[in-house]
């Protein structure tokens, strides 16, 4: 068994958890939502039954999420519903900043994954990879590599001047300015990755041959990159992947199935691609908030509060619906409008870091977090 790995998939824009993991038997849901923004028990939009042990509600997964239903049925996937930020914010950027920084008590200088990295001090060529072109706030505060694919990492890979340029960067940026730490980390990572992956005969990185085909979609290359980093033995411990487009204010029905399928298909391929390394990997899927119970007049939904989190990985006891379902009756809604947050999202992450990543004391990552855990292991 290798060292544990945590993959965080962030659904940017506020995924509509009420259509993704639908309380299909809930009268208030049926009354409030037009059918084209629901996942139902029967008919064209019939969802996949999850077999509820949560509040006697018949929760249905959106039909485009069939691969996730398979993982759930196999006991590898748990869903925690009605999770989110305790602070009531309905701003994307405020909610994302708060969730990813997770109250570090340092004025926002670090994110929760950055703090885990500082505590755990993992070694190896590539302990943390943010797939994409921007460092997510969750990784602030610790060295992390940002790149869309592994062959994008090294400086001027294969160029005859690469060694000189690395030296130039190390020397030239001296001991000042925002690029210093980045330069040092990148030069080190460039050399380590080039040692591992460069194929001189090809004059390129050794191509990655996944063991399964990934369906097309915006998550495919990112998740394939994460699988590659795990299987190449680069010491990966943390990976983050962003998946945008969930801000469905207008004509949600046109886009939602594609968004869900774009999550479920590539995630299933990634999971199969891992093969025996599945035992080392957990994936958490989250969003900054869910969406409003009532639709707007543009065929969409506006920013809400609680959402759902998915936890994939064989260590936890999967195949369950966790959390506390608050119901959707008017008096149960937050501000009379939105699914109420009954599980602090940090409780889910803290349980993962403790149970999967071996974090001894969650206080180091989530200062002030109340006891209570959703029970991924229990």
């Amino acid at each position, binding site marked *: 068994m290798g060292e544990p790995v945590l993959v965080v998939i962030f659904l940017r824009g506020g995924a509509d958890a009420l259509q993704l993991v639908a309380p299909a038997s809930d009268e208030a849901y049926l009354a409030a939502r037009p059918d084209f923004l629901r996942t139902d028990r029967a008919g064209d939009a019939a969802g996949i039954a999850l077999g509820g042990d949560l509040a006697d509600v018949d929760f249905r997964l959106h039909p485009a999420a069939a691969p996730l239903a398979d993982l759930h049925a196999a006991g590898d996937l748990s869903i925690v519903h009605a999770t989110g930020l305790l602070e009531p914010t309905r701003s994307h950027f405020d909610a994302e900043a708060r969730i990813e920084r997770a109250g570090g008590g340092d004025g926002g200088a670090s994110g929760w994954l950055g703090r885990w990295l500082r505590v755990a001090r993992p070694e190896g060529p590539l302990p943390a990879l943010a797939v994409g072109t921007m460092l997510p706030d969750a990784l602030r505060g610790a060295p992390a590599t940002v790149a869309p694919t592994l062959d994008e990492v090294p400086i001027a890979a294969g160029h005859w001047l690469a060694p000189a*340029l690395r030296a130039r960067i190390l020397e030239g940026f001296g001991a000042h300015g925002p*690029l210093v730490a980045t330069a040092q980390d990148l030069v080190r990572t460039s050399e380590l990755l080039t040692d591992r992956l460069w194929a001189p005969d090809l004059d390129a990185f050794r191509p990655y041959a996944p063991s399964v085909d990934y369906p097309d979609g915006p998550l495919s290359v990112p998740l394939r990159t994460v699988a590659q980093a795990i299987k190449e033995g680069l010491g990966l411990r943390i990976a983050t992947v962003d998946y*945008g487009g969930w801000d469905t204010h207008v004509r949600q029905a046109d886009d939602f199935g594609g968004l869900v399928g774009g999550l479920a298909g590539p995630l299933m391929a990634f999971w199969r691609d891992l093969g025996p390394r599945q035992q080392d990997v957990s994936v958490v899927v989250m969003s900054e908030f869910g969406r409003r119970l009532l639709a707007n007049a543009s065929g969409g939904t506006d920013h809400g509060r609680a959402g759902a989190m998915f936890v994939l990985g064989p260590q936890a006891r999967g195949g369950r619906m966790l959390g506390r379902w608050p119901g959707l009756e008017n008096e149960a809604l937050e501000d009379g409008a939105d699914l109420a947050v009954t599980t602090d999202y940090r409780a889910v992450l803290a349980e993962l870091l403790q149970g999967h990543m071996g974090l001894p004391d969650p206080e180091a990552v989530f200062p002030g977090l109340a006891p209570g855990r959703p029970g991924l292991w229990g």
Partner: protein
Amino acid sequence: MLTRRSFHRQLLALLAAGALPLPRPAGAAAGGGGGDALLNRLSFGATETSRRELASAGPEDWLEGQLAAPPGDAGLTRRLAAARLRIAYEAGDDGAGGHWPATDEMRPLGLLEADPAGLLGLLDHETAMDYAERVRPAQEVIAASLLRAVHAEAQLREVMTQFWHDHFNVMSTASEATAVFFPAYDRMLRDHAFGNFRALLGEVAKAPAMLTYLGNADSRASPANENFARELLELHTLGAGNYLSDRIGHWSEVPGAAQGLAAGYIDEDVYEAARCFTGWTVGDGRWIGEGREAPMSGAFHYAEAWHDPYQKRFLGREFPSHQGPLADGEQALDMLATHPGTARFVCAKIARRLLADDPDPDLVEHLAGVFLREAGALDQIARVIRALVAHPAFAATPPGKLRRPFEVLAALYRATGAEVASAELGWNWQLSRAGWRQHAYPPPTGHPDLSADWANSTYLARVVDLALYAHDQWFDGARPSAGALVPDTLASFGQVCGHWTQRLHGRADETGYGPVLERFGVSEADPLPDDPEDREHAVAMALAVAALSPAFLYR
């Protein structure tokens, strides 16, 4: 003698033997010379010409010249007219009997000045055409943007146009609608770059590009779609710092609300603002109601039938019912444009863009005062910029802000004197690998503007690529190659290094290349190689070394 192979061998040997000493610019963090600091803040990068102009005019007159410069100039007009952007796609059909032929042509940027009404045909799905034709207007604006940034004489206007593009971000490639309306949006932002903020805000709120990007074009009573209203408050005017929903649950508790102007906003203000803008839509022939369609104007359209006319309370102020067409939205914009929170938020962003990541709070307060005092001025933004440059903090702040990817590329071409000549958008794809999505940034925040947001590994690796390749033929960004941009009279290695140092850093006094050159088996006094290819390599190497320097990357 210097060859590619011998270079490589010697470098590896040096690395194996230990550290490779390379020149460190004198003054390290201080960046470029005095005049360059101003030019690098208020333009896309100093050039030999702009250095001369600044030296001869002095800072005040130079700034006035920039503030007075019209958007176009003869050289820019000539370049835009000569530019060609390839369009290529395969033959296809729309599945309903419509076909289009395969196309591969070098096409002029013919849509930049087009009337949007004339482009509505691109949105008509009854007409068969490849998607590349539908989004062509956006591609042309993206192609023109690098040309403008490098060659426009009205540099400060271009810098501010980019600023407003990020502040009022529209992802031009989000849909064919955003693409079709984007040339008009770009023109509008450029025209208003130094103008009155209220006027600009009104133009943005009525811009078909914004109305389609944030979905307000579909917002109607009831419930309203809150997307535009939320970003209007959070990103365009008051800023997230004035969003108080985590602290305050009721409108009457917001400071100032009881006096008729709340200091900040809560979710209910978002909902009320959303109601104010119901019916603000686009004249694209859309169905409004029974027997009623929006005109095919390609411009803003107010659909009275979609508007929620009843009383509202916004930021503590009551709006009576039935105020009449547009009045609710206009009143909300009036309140926001003159709100002290907006003044601070917008002025802090301008100072962050033109000066430093963390502008002096006194400076921001001073600018906010100017912004509010001059709220009625047609040149309100110009007055804020003047106040910024005149403030002691402007001169007292040392360079230290990381150039963002688009700015690295533009500044590089300006410094070397290359001509932008991109028949395809390859350079744009290269920038996207560094996180820069010119006019196509998906979230409505626009590109971030703090050095820390960019100081990551993929930025640095791609900036190395730009330094190495931006003048290569295959990169398809500018002509000619680096080797052809240095005068033939440069005979020695030392002179080439000195040339790029002067061009990129604004001073010829940097020394210290000597030890590096010695390690390559040459000295500053040695002649450049005779072989054209070797000479090209040597000149390009010196350019990359000069570009990968704090003096160039920090402004």
